């Protein structure tokens, strides 16, 4: 089970959001809301998740919904870990 905090740490490592990340909640929007969240960041986050949790992400699993909020990203990670 991946915690919200783990996902926040990974996001912060990739995007260097600094202190802001502490105030993030499940509902905090990612895509379209955080300017740092560009295509390079999306790939870096996926790679970081793969490396951190040891699963492989298939392209078919990736869509905008995964990166909508911190909560949706954490859900995706947990779904991968359960699968």
């Amino acid at each position, binding site marked *: 089970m991946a915690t919200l905090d783990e996902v926040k*740490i990974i996001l912060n*490592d*990739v*995007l*260097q959001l600094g202190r802001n990340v502490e105030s993030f909640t499940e509902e905090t929007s990612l*895509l379209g809301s955080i300017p*740092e*969240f*560009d*295509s*390079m*960041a*999306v*790939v*870096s986050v*996926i*790679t*970081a998740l793969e*490396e951190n949790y*040891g699963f492989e992400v298939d*392209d*078919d699993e*990736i*869509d*905008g919904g995964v*990166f909508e909020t911190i909560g949706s990203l954490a859900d995706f990670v947990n779904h991968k870990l359960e699968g």
Partner: protein
Amino acid sequence: MSSSSVQVNPHFTKGRAGKNFLVSFRRQDKLPVAAFLIIPPLAEELNKSRRMLCRMANHLAELGFEVVMPDLFGTGDSEGDFADATWDLWREDLFDICTGLKANGYNINILAVRAGALLAYDLMSNKNLNCENLVFWQPVVSGDMWLTQFLRLKLAASIVNDTGSKETTKALKTRLSEGEAIEVAGYTVSPSLANGIKQLNLQNIAPSGCGKIFWLELIASDGKSVLPSSKKVLEKWNQSVEVHSETVIGQAFWSTTEITDADNLLLRTKTLLSVN
């Protein structure tokens, strides 16, 4: 950025397909003891790494090395477009640089960063290059995986821009194998470049001809070991060659959104090579 005793010399050299830009670093007060070739990462990772590479080059020069940092053909300030670059061309250009350094009486040392590790590996395996110290920074273990991650930028762009058209890496790889060049994040990848990088996997066989191999990876927090994929390679290599591997705390400077420094990595690399 350079310390006062290090002389920095940017110039062009003749490569096989055109002029390549190259920066050399050396101490002004004494003759170099050996050469250090820096093999850079590729594409956007190179842009993010420039500052770290330059700082390391200065450190290596201070240690007494003649440091040579080339821009591969079609990248940086070298001639050509990325679309014209092939894997074999890069390998041969690097081999020519090493041959030139050897002709000047220098033994070769190599620092290879990210996908640069695959080029270093190719030089060792296919060109039988000998080197004293081979230093890897966060080496890309599988060329195929690197290609997947790179092509994924196109998929990511379609998500970020919400274009609705989803281009999977699988489909892009098929197009490349059918001879089509693919443009990703401003870089046009030729089929021959993709094919060259795809073939390489550090897992295949341990490189011979190296004195010492240092394998350094960055971790975000203490207590983590090298990546699982690296561990597999290291287990295999350690059966035939001596590899020193360790993790250093610092940011993944080649991929961070802002340009970042990983000071611990610079210092640790310097220490390992000084003791050596």
